[in-house]
């Protein structure tokens, strides 16, 4: 970088030229980041904004004035006065050939969108660049792991393009370092220590590798199990129901069924990260054990299905009997630390507005 960068210390921007337009940038930003901000559509396959730039796929190449060859925009820092071209006939031809080569690597070019968050990225680019030409025929890298019996992560490396996003998300985002790259060239293989199954590795089944894979080589087996459920897939933004971190998720539904979970990349508490529970432990809500009707204990000592009307009457009668016979301090209520805040608010209002007592607690003490 040159000495004349005007970072001023108070937010003043440096400037560069992007496709003939003068644009500002913050020192430290890459050419790709600046281009994204100015809505240039630079294709990428190995890029995940949460990870360190890798420069592996070379699709994000741009022309920089004074540089003979195109450079990868994801690994090139923006510099004062830099003149960058993001789109030209030469660049587009280059990108198309690269995509044709990438396509020649994989058995399947189209995968079910239920495979994962980014699983359609390669197919989308192949269409955008009209690159399904079959012009290159050659070896394929990667051997699938159909013998890995885990119920969560499909490991179909015959659809792997060696972008290493899975390896990098596992290391950089999760800090688990459960998977790595073995061999070179067409022998390249994503693997675990001692080339075994995931359960025997440091893998925590957080599913981040699935969600960053741009080809569906790594895919969400639980979601794919529902791929034939009829209907459009709908997404609903909500928050994970387990620990106190509060990770944002998008629930995938088809009809009245939750079929999977996608991490919310813009979730304020998690920025796309999830753990095994948030990613995979969602289907308890549709479990056959769910209570679907009120139950009232009968004279036979057993619980029997009842209408809301009967159950509410019975409950009101039972609780009021205690209050009438033993005073308002004979009734105690416990609010849930798992239910929404509105439930807890209603519960405390129940004892305070209803009975005038503070006979309430939640489950935080045990």
């Amino acid at each position, binding site marked *: 970088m040159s000495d004349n960068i005007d970072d001023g210390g108070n937010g003043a921007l440096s400037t560069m030229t992007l496709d003939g337009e003068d644009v500002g940038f913050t020192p430290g930003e890459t050419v790709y980041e600046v281009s994204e901000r100015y809505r240039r559509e630079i294709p990428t396959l190995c890029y995940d904004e949460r990870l360190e730039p890798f420069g592996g796929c070379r699709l994000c190449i741009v022309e920089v004035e004074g540089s003979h060859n195109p450079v990868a925009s994801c690994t090139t820092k923006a510099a004062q006065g830099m003149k960058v071209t993001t789109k030209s006939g030469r660049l587009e031809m280059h990108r198309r050939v690269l995509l044709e080569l990438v396509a020649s690597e994989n058995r399947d070019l189209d995968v079910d969108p239920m495979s994962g968050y980014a699983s359609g990225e390669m197919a989308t680019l192949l269409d955008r660049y009209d690159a399904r030409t079959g012009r290159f025929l050659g070896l394929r890298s990667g051997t699938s792991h159909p013998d890995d019996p885990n119920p*969560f992560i499909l490991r179909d490396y015959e659809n792997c393009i060696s972008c290493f996003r899975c390896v990098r998300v596992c290391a*950089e985002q999760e*800090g688990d370092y459960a998977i790595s790259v073995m061999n070179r060239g067409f022998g390249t293989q994503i693997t675990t220590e001692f080339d075994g199954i995931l*359960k025997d590795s440091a893998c*925590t089944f957080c599913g981040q590798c699935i969600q960053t894979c741009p080809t569906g080589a790594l895919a969400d087996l639980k979601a794919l199990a529902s791929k034939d459920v009829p209907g459009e897939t709908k997404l*609903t933004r*909500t*928050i994970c*129901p387990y*620990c*106190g*971190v*509060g990770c*944002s998720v998008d629930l995938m539904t088809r009809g009245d*069924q*939750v079929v999977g979970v996608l991490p919310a990349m813009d979730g304020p*508490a998690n920025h796309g990260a999830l*753990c095994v529970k948030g990613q*995979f*432990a969602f289907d*308890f809500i549709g479990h056959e054990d*769910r*209570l*679907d*009707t*009120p*139950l009232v*204990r009968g004279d036979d000592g057993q619980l029997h299905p009842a209408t809301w009307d009967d159950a509410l009457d019975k409950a*009101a009668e*039972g*609780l009021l009997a205690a209050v009438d016979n033993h005073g308002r301090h*004979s*009734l*105690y*209520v*416990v609010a*849930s*630390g*798992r*239910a*929404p805040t*509105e*439930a*807890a*608010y*209603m*519960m*405390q*209002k129940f004892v*305070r*507005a*209803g009975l*005038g*007592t*503070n*006979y309430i*607690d*939640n*489950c935080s*003490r045990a």
Partner: protein
Amino acid sequence: MSNPLADMDKPDVIFCIGTNMTECHPVAATGIKRALAKGAKLIVADPRHIVLADLADVYLPLRVGTDSALLLGMAHVIAREGLVDQAFMDARTTEGMAFLEHVQRFSPEWAEEITGVPAADIEQAALWYGQAERGAIYYTLGITEHICGVENVQGLCNLVLMTGNIGREGTGINPMRGQNNIQGAGDAGALPNNYPGFQPVTDPENQEKFEKLYGKKVDLENGITKVTALEMCGDQIRAMFIDGENTVVSDPERAHCEKALRSLDFLVVADLFLTETAELADVVFPVSAWGEVDGTQTNTERRIQRLRAAVPSPGVARPDWWVISALAKRMGFQGFEYEGAKEVFNELCEVTEIYHGVDWDKVEDGAFSWPIPFDGHPGTPMLHADVFENGRGIFNLVEQRDPAETVDDDYPVWLTTGRRLASYHTRTQTGRSAGIDYLLSEESLEIHPDDVDEWGLADGSWAIMSSRRGSVRVRVKATKRSPRGTVFTTFSFADVPVNALTGGGYDPITQTAELKVCPVSVVPE
């Protein structure tokens, strides 16, 4: 947490004590791992060699229940080495001089005697934390689930106050809340001592305010905790209404707990499933689950976030708030006409100072951490920036106290309990999610391999573990994650009801159960 989750990759020294974060708050732990990749130092204190201990620069394997001694030893070193932030202490704390004198008695060698942690490691941890530019403390139930839980927290506060590691980015004292909405439940006033927004019930002004709002004069005395209420079941307490808690399996002293609930004249339970607790009820209400309800929940960094319904509830199950208000109306209580969760939340915001600046629509994107005292306030991701909420930070002259029960000839082994990554609490939810069994299908008792040999057990064999209150049969797992003489298991599996054993004592102030320490015997089946 005093500081936001986004701060977790920013400290240069991180002190984790009593938090198995990679398993219990895995996504938060990714922040710590990123901090380490940037060169931060990690101090981990835990009786078990948890995954965080693998990552630590110094690991302090303290004996269960000796946290206070460890913290006093560290404070001693920080004071002795002149690492005290005197300017901070002068400006923002009180009782500092007395504290610095107090800790002279507690050398690292003294702490080593009690904790079993080498004095040199205590020195190193204290030096790092004391010298930190941005030192952050993270803790969980390993600190609080003791009879001295309050003192343990005060011990951590003392370290913070003497070093000024608070009120700045990447610092702070940060408890990680264990349940998705345990913060929100407290915020909403589901506590015996506070109205919504932690407004004390003992303050006549608050009483007057809520009398106006609710049309009812509420007791000026604190109510009783659940622990006390369970003690009084069948006596003063004759009826209970429990929403979404599997008390029988999650609370200590299972036999006592079950007996208490059975002794009630009337029990009403609202839940997703017919839990062990619901099975004891006279009336069970089916409630809507996560994914089926609109609402809010508040996370460990006090961030208020929206829950949204994606699918309908099974059968006639209804949202908790609807069930509670319907029952209230049926009992003749006034003020329970609500159209939806939005109306309930907006009422909470109106009556609650800390939520006053938001409403249902404003929390749409989860952009606010409380306190948000007025409309237009940006929220408070970091507490205690310039002043402490309650005036000056008070040093407490804590001392080490033994657990309620200590090991003896009959119960010579320390049991400590917790969670594992793939299961949550009593497995009512994770146990019913496909595939989780592949990772964790049964309970096990984690025992050091040398103890396994010495006690005549074998990896995978069955053991009988007993405390003064009960016994369980559990499968043995040999692992060096457990130190010699200390074993670990969870309360996840109904067929190994570990809460039949625990419950030797409670913190006298918070009445939190001492679930982290329980002397037991472990013998072959």
